């Protein structure tokens, strides 16, 4: 669909949020909580931390939360009876004020959860969420979205994209049907955008540091290059911070919790960084040491996903590097892989 351009006044943003709330749409937006910024439900505009570069965690939690019930069951002498989760009980939600890399992150998640058998929990939630992303006026040294096919103004995955073009004006790009449908709610606040607005002028300058295709090729080839993975991962302490904040990591684990009468099955985030991730009941662990696990993290995103899902599993948002306690900076590692001759 051909994208429409509109102008919105900054001063109208509070009204916008009120409109959404009055229509009963839950609004998820970045909220400052001490030094950490979380994407959470908001009621008014002033709860939203618009000045923040990136939330600590990605927006994937809107569709793939850290804890999600997938099944209810009751235990009786006769046996177990299951009560499935009512899939259409999910509400239409609005993801407001996220960044382009959050929005484009869903591209990888759609690819993974879209595979057969389709994961309805994710897909239903994703289908019912409308993403209003804000383009990035600034970036920091962790960002490398431009090197993986993204960019500060990338619109992939966004239904609407706002770009601040002046102190009071926002350039609104309506990108999808969902975007159009939502924009109808505040059409009165929108005015036609003059032609010739060069959006790139208002975007951050993020240098390309490596050629993604080259990295994909070299990553696929370096499975057996143990020295490379060892050198890179010696300081990695094997926690799950990078996987859990990453917009494209989608691994999960099932756990049941019950009392003697009733129980639930929960889907939880999991990380290939944990040693437990590949521990067999026999005690054997195919990925015994941390370097193998680090290799898996890189190869999954830059070798297996491109090969099988034709999408690079990384949006270059740099969240994993910011969250990493021991400074396993993925941008630095990918650059060094790219530099392999």
């Amino acid at each position, binding site marked *: 669909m051909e994208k429409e351009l509109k102008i919105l006044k900054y001063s109208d943003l509070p009204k916008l949020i009120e409109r959404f709330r009055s229509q009963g749409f839950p609004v998820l937006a970045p909220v400052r909580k001490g030094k950490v910024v979380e994407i959470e439900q908001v009621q008014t505009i002033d709860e939203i931390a618009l000045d923040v570069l990136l939330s600590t965690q990605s927006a994937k939690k809107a569709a793939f939360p850290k804890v999600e*019930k997938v099944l*209810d069951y009751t235990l009786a002498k006769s046996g177990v009876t299951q009560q499935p989760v009512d899939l259409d009980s999910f509400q239409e939600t609005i993801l407001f004020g996220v960044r382009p890399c959050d929005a484009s992150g869903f591209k990888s998640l759609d690819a993974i959860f879209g595979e057969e058998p389709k994961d309805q929990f994710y897909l239903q939630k994703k289908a019912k969420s409308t993403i209003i992303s804000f383009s990035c006026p600034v970036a920091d040294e962790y960002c490398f979205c431009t090197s993986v096919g993204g960019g500060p103004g990338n619109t992939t995955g966004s239904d609407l994209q706002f770009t601040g073009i002046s102190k009071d004006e926002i350039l609104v790009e309506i990108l999808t049907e969902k975007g159009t449908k939502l924009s109808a709610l505040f059409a009165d606040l929108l005015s036609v955008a003059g032609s010739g607005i060069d959006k790139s002028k208002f975007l951050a300058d993020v240098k390309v540091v490596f050629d993604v295709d080259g990295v994909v090729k070299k990553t696929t080839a370096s499975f057996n290059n143990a020295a490379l993975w060892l050198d890179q991962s010696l300081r990695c302490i094997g926690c799950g911070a990078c996987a859990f904040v990453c917009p494209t990591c989608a691994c999960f684990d099932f756990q049941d919790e*019950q009392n003697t009468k*009733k*129980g*639930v099955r*929960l889907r939880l985030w999991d990380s290939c960084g944990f040693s437990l991730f590949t521990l067999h009941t026999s005690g054997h662990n195919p990925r015994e040491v941390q370097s193998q696990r680090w290799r898996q993290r890189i190869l999954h995103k830059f070798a297996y996903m491109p090969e099988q899902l034709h999408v690079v599993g990384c949006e270059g948002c740099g969240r994993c590097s910011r969250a990493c306690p021991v400074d396993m900076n993925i941008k630095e590692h990918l650059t060094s892989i790219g530099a392999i001759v």
Partner: protein
Amino acid sequence: MQEFEPKIVAFVCNWCTYAGADLTGTSRIKYSANVKIIRFPCTGRIDFMILMKAFENGADGIIVSGCHPNDCHYSTGNFHARRRWIVFRNLLNFTGIDTERIQFSWVSAAEGFKWADVVNNTVKKIKEIGPYENYKKIAVSTLFNEEGASNE
């Protein structure tokens, strides 16, 4: 509304307090039925996580009781337990868990009367404090679906 009947679990050691409770029985001394006993070989065997599980599953009060110092059948179990509880109570207090709901005591195999007192006093105290709302808010039952979700 019908009077609050607290659920209290008692973790006791087999050689002293369990036998003391037996003596309370043989002497037919009455005490409130809210307290149910779980037997351990020694108070040394009572892991601090057991107390956490008790609160999570709806216990309003906990009694932990074993042999007096120097009476332990295994000679040192109760000493190690005492150190564990000194540290654990500190931690629980710091994280806002109500240690008034946990009653620690020494009850020997000959103190049938004392066991009845410990139980009755604890039940009276917990009835005054009321159900442990904080823990009920995070119990596993809150995860179950709405109809019939109440923790019957």
